[in-house]
């Protein structure tokens, strides 16, 4: 029988690390995914997501069940993103694309059994998406991820990012416009990808 979040939180608040680790196992993928798309580097994403968990453990006493545990955790994550952006954490470590996190090795991919033209096309297309995401400003990227991946409303995002809902809406719209321009079928990159995929 699995324990509810409330029970685990109560135990974790009494300094039970095991209970907290169980909570982490439930939500780590979502937090890590958000970090991965935001900082676009596998190592940064792991460091950042684990830092979020450490902060959450320290601040667990302040959790009052007014919102869900994940909503509270996501707020900590967003604050961590914004703090790291201000401190230039990602720039110091260097920016890499999603290629790293997808761990695409062209030779390995071609030798593997899943090296069908469709798979190669998908992988390269996603690499292209990663590059397109990298061209967004951090604010645009964060707003887009929170709206598209997390399904947050503009008001919620604005509250979390400490800006107006209009600014968030504009940021999301611009982000989608940039992604559309980068990924549209008539763009040169997409054509090149299609050609490349057909070659294999």
């Amino acid at each position, binding site marked *: 029988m699995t324990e509810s979040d409330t029970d685990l939180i109560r135990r974790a608040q009494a300094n039970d690390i095991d209970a907290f680790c169980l909570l982490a196992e439930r939500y780590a993928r979502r937090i890590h995914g958000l970090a991965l798309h935001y900082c676009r580097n596998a190592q940064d994403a792991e460091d950042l997501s*684990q830092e979020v968990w*450490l902060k959450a*453990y320290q601040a*667990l006493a*302040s959790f009052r069940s007014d919102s869900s545990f994940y909503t509270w955790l996501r707020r900590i994550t967003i604050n961590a993103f914004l703090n790291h952006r201000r401190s230039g954490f990602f720039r110091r470590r260097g920016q890499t694309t999603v290629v790293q996190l997808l761990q695409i090795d062209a030779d390995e991919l071609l030798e593997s059994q899943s090296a069908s033209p469709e798979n190669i096309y998908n992988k390269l297309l996603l690499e292209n998406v990663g590059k397109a995401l990298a061209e967004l400003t951090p604010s645009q990227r964060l707003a887009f991820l929170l709206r598209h991946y997390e399904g947050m409303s503009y008001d919620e995002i604005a509250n979390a990012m400490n800006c107006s809902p209009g600014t968030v809406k504009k940021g999301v719209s611009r982000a989608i416009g940039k992604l559309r321009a980068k*990924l549209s079928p008539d763009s040169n990159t997409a054509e090149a990808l299609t050609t490349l995929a057909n070659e294999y």
Partner: protein
Amino acid sequence: MHNCSKTKEQIIELLLDGNDQPGDRLAAEVRSCRDCSAEFDALNATLRITGRLKEMAAPPENYWTSYHARLRGKLVYAVEGRRRGGHVGPSQQSTLRSVLESSIRVPVPVAAVAVIAFLMLVPLSFRKSERANIQNPSVVQVPVEVPVIKEKIVTRVVYKERRSRFKNPTRGNRNPTVEDTFAKSQRIESSLSGFKPAENVKLTVIKGGSANEK
């Protein structure tokens, strides 16, 4: 009237909400405009591709075992560090930390005025405290042994000769009367009895203090 940019916004909101089928009104707008129809398809494809990235970029299952092991290690290390530092528990430290690290945003002019007012008040407060120190010296209570002098009442009877009014009838009267003058001359006569005046009288003239006097 059809507005392409407005329709584009509506399409984005529709797709972001997870619907790829527009409502009747929006569908009619999209169908009526070739550009809007193309925009709808392009945006739908873009968001579908970016949505797939979320699934595709997920690390493999074996990654999570090591991830949680590392996280547990960090948690244990943090807790141990806190215990070594003398803290009772993470809850108390987090509360203290949140209080210490909390910050409020203050507009720059307000902050500047507050800083100037503070800088002006600091010297004044120092002066006031100095004055207070001068006016109100500190009182130190030290027990000191003091010999107590016991008062003694001594009574002595003094006898005073009583003067009769007759002997001093002019007491308090400054002008001598005729009787007084007569009594005085009688006392002088009695004191000159037996006095012989000399034959030669030697006179010595004492010159005055003036320089031209001779």
